[in-house]
């Protein structure tokens, strides 16, 4: 018995999805056996209007290496306008975090509808690739 000294780093990626589009898209991707990396953890929320920028910062603070927010395409929101509000918020927050020196890859967004299982798969593969390229998150991570 020996302790493995060379553990391979695996990214921790949080994906916030809206209940109505992206979660259904993820469901459909699973239904159709589309493979995508197992490094993403999906958290379901009622609407992309529910996304709070503090979730992203908190996730990065508590050990996530990347965060993706995903909801219905603008105009398709189940509640009408949720993703329009979210779009403004996250545009500003993204600029702000980049201004403070966080890599743009760490905080991403994509609009994925319920029927776009292919897109969901493609986005997840690209997301994990991006995070693997920029490496572990050391900047906003809690150092304790």
């Amino acid at each position, binding site marked *: 018995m020996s302790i493995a000294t060379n553990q391979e780093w695996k990214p921790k990626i949080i994906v916030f999805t809206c209940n109505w589009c992206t979660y259904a898209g993820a469901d459909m991707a699973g239904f159709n056996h589309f493979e995508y990396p197992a490094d993403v953890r999906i958290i379901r929320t009622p609407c992309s209007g529910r996304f709070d920028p503090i979730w992203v910062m908190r996730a990065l603070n508590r050990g996530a290496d990347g965060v993706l927010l995903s909801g219905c395409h603008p105009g398709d929101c189940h509640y009408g306008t949720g993703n329009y509000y979210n779009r*403004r918020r996250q545009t*500003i927050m993204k*600029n*702000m*975090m*980049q201004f403070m*020196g966080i890599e743009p890859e760490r905080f991403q967004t994509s609009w994925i509808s319920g029927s776009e299982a292919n897109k969901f798969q493609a986005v997840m593969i690209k997301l994990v690739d991006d995070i693997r390229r920029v490496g572990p998150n050391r900047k906003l991570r809690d150092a304790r």
Partner: protein
Amino acid sequence: MKEITSKLQEIATRLFNEGKIDVFLAWEKGEQEFQTKSYIAHSVDDVKNIIFNEYSIYNVSNALLKLRDGHEKIGIAVKGCDSRGVVRLLEDLQITRDRLYIIGIPCPGLKDPLAAARSFGGLGKKESDQGLAKKCLECIQPNPVIYDELVGPEQTPRQQGDRFAQVREIEQMSADERYKFWEDTLSTCIRCYACRQVCVACDCRTCIFDEMKPQWVGRETNTTDNMMYHLVKHAHMAGRCIECGECERVCPVGIPLMLLNRKLIKDVGELFGGTEAGLQYTEGAKPALSVFKENDPDNFQ
């Protein structure tokens, strides 16, 4: 300044006698010559304490938050930046317009009490020809934007050149350089929350930084927690900062907080357009992040 003081006292006396107001918000003399405090006059007898001098730099609109739950009618003396704060509170429905009687003071530019304290103390140096405070040199709105009565002649904006120059400079750096810059700058933060206390846009009843369950932001003064604090605080300022510069003025360790605020103002202006926060009052108007357009920029994917 002397005329403005006497005029303020005259107006306050008149309003009290006419029964138009129950309290009057202005400044009073502080302990030192170079200090003033915000002051709430409750009757005609208190009016003699009201003062406006070159150190009346404190943003009194913030003190309206202490009175937001009452029903008393409020007279308030405002400079240009304070009047934008009043608009901020009206927009946030923290206070109603019919409770306010606003006396506008076109601001000639004021001095920084902290700088004055430094020149007074220590080496026996007396107050020399101390210039205007930094926030007054960067002022774009010296004239009140909302008032019932105006005291004194109108002033011209003192901001020279491009107020976003430093923001653009930092935007040119690489991500690691930017992080290094903010790491160095924010590592001095002692988390005294003075910037939050003095901010007129910080009008939540329960602040997210005071919440224990869930505790969103750690309370240690290490780099990550400090960065979290400033990111979250400025996330709340987006489209709401009135650029009064109070946060930067009260910061005991001199963090350039207006740099972050200006970045937000610049981005909101470039991306969503519209007038800047608090520059004009229209009933029912909302801050930039509480409204949307269908053709907002969508090129971040």
